[in-house]
């Protein structure tokens, strides 16, 4: 019902942009220069939407605004904007729009309800913006986790038919799963019958991780290969016993070297010194 | 809050109906970008449960839905039969494999393969089982 007033904001687009920019800078946000294009587009699209769609947030015009806002939020994560700056983006816009309304309307009842409406619209957009920002953040983190996982589990073909996977760093449940899938795939890819999983670089193992390790060994055996776990630190050995985890049937060796010796034995290979 | 984005119902009356069910579940899994391993888990669990449907429930209906909540995408499958119902659920949910005997209804195994597992049974009125597998588990 106060859309008429909000609709007329479009005529004041330029002033709004200037005010918005000033407010952002006053808040200490980074200079508005690089944002100008996308912000101008955002403002323009939003004011168009206010003008044409009677506040119907499901309309096509508003969809365009929402999509753009999502894009802006996600790109701002990547460009290193803080969450505060992200929030201030829309808060400042709201303030700028409010100031203009004050200038163009004198009737306080009309002013009050259009401000209320403006708040409703922009607050919802703020939520959208936060969600997208968070999603963007999570995407960055997942990608980084993926990269770290890949680097931190190298696969070494130590011999024909024997492959070693030394794990470095903390093993949590999800990382162990990745290691497990990786190990099994390596067995297929390299045609190795024995995989040595070395955990000397792992400081601690909890019950869930131990279960996954046992699962890994069982799965390798189902596939027709075998898995030796080496490098179990004394502390881990103690934890395993205290947790009541049953390691019978799992071949464990103190070091990768002895695991290799065991693997040779299993493949009936002998290393002989030349005369 | 979970929203449903897609839904299909399959009627299971004979053994040959299991194969199209598996394809359908795979299709839904692929559509939400589920990893191969998770697809395998989901389809295997569905396979177990649909065989139960046939064997003990006298056939029934399976509903497959793609679902989403704030953080993840998933596939939800509901198995409904109007068979005799399960006498003792707590017994049915116990693992039998350690004794080396048959797997019974395979319910605990199927439960381990998915993220959410709900079962409702009424003697003489049938059983409804709902499972959900999320992408990020």
């Amino acid at each position, binding site marked *: 019902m106060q859309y008429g007033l909000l609709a007329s904001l479009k005529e004041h687009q330029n002033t709004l942009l200037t005010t918005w920019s000033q407010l952002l800078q006053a808040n200490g946000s980074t200079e508005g220069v690089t944002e100008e294009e996308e912000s101008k587009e955002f403002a323009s699209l939003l004011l168009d939407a206010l003008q044409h769609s009677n506040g119907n947030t499901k309309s096509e015009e508003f969809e365009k605004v929402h999509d753009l806002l999502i894009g802006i939020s996600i790109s701002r994560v990547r460009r290193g904007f803080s969450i505060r700056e992200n929030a201030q983006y829309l808060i400042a816009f709201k303030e700028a729009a409010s100031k203009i309304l004050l200038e163009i309307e004198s009737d306080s009842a009309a002013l009050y309800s259009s401000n209320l409406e403006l708040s409703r619209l922009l607050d919802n957009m703020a939520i959208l913006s936060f969600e997208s920002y968070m999603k963007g953040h999570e995407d960055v983190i997942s990608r980084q986790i993926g990269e770290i996982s890949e680097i931190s589990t190298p696969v070494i073909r130590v011999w024909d038919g024997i492959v070693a996977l030394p794990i470095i760093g903390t093993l949590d449940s999800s990382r162990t799963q990745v290691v*497990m*899938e990786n190990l*099994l*795939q390596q*067995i*297929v890819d390299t*045609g190795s*019958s024995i995989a040595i999983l070395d955990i000397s670089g792992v400081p601690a193992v909890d019950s869930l991780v131990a279960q996954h390790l046992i*699962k890994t060994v*069982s*799965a*390798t*055996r*189902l*596939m*027709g*290969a075998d898995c030796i776990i080496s490098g179990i630190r004394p502390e881990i050995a103690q934890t395993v016993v205290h947790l009541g985890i049953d390691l019978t049937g799992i*071949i464990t060796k103190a070091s990768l070297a002895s695991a290799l010796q*065991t693997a040779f*034995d*299993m493949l009936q290979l002998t290393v002989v010194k030349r005369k | 809050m979970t929203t449903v984005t897609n839904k299909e119902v399959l009627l299971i009356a004979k*053994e*040959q109906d*299991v*194969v199209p069910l*598996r394809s359908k579940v795979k299709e839904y899994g692929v559509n939400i970008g589920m990893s*191969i*391993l998770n*697809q*395998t*888990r989901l*389809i*295997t669990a569905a*396979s*177990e449960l649909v*065989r139960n449907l046939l064997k003990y429930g006298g056939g029934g209906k399976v509903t497959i839905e793609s679902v989403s909540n704030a953080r993840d995408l998933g596939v939800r499958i509901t198995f409904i039969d109007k068979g005799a119902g399960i006498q003792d659920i707590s017994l049915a949910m116990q*693992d039998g*494999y350690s004794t*080396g005997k048959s*797997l019974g209804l*395979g319910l*605990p*195994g*199927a439960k*381990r*393969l998915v993220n959410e597992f709900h079962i409702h049974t009424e003697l003489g009125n049938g059983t409804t089982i709902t499972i959900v597998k999320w992408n990020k588990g």
Partner: protein
Amino acid sequence: MERIPILKMGDFLLVTIQVDLYDQLAENLETDLIETIKKNNSKGVLIDISAVSIIDSFMGRILGNIAVMSKIMDAQTVVVGMQPAVAITLVELGLSLNGVISALNVEKGMDLLRAKMYNGDNEEQTYDDRNQ
């Protein structure tokens, strides 16, 4: 009626499973295998499951059955080519596939069968720590 082909490879038989095994098909396979083992006096059966992406308890039972039936006919069964995702799922499902021996591929499977033939399968080749 669809039947799964059984290939003769010397003393051994090779079965490659590429379709979903439903009741009738599985039963036919068991019957065909037993007859073929008898007819050829086969010493081993290789079941190639590299194309199988889902193994549920039904399929597990079939594999177990085949292993036991063949053993009675004095033939050893080796399952080859299990996919990693299948292996992980089987472990999580709790299906232990007792009585079924596995190898990574057909070649290794045949090596295993030959070794068992010559060593006799009474001595289980279990690994143990031997003091050198």
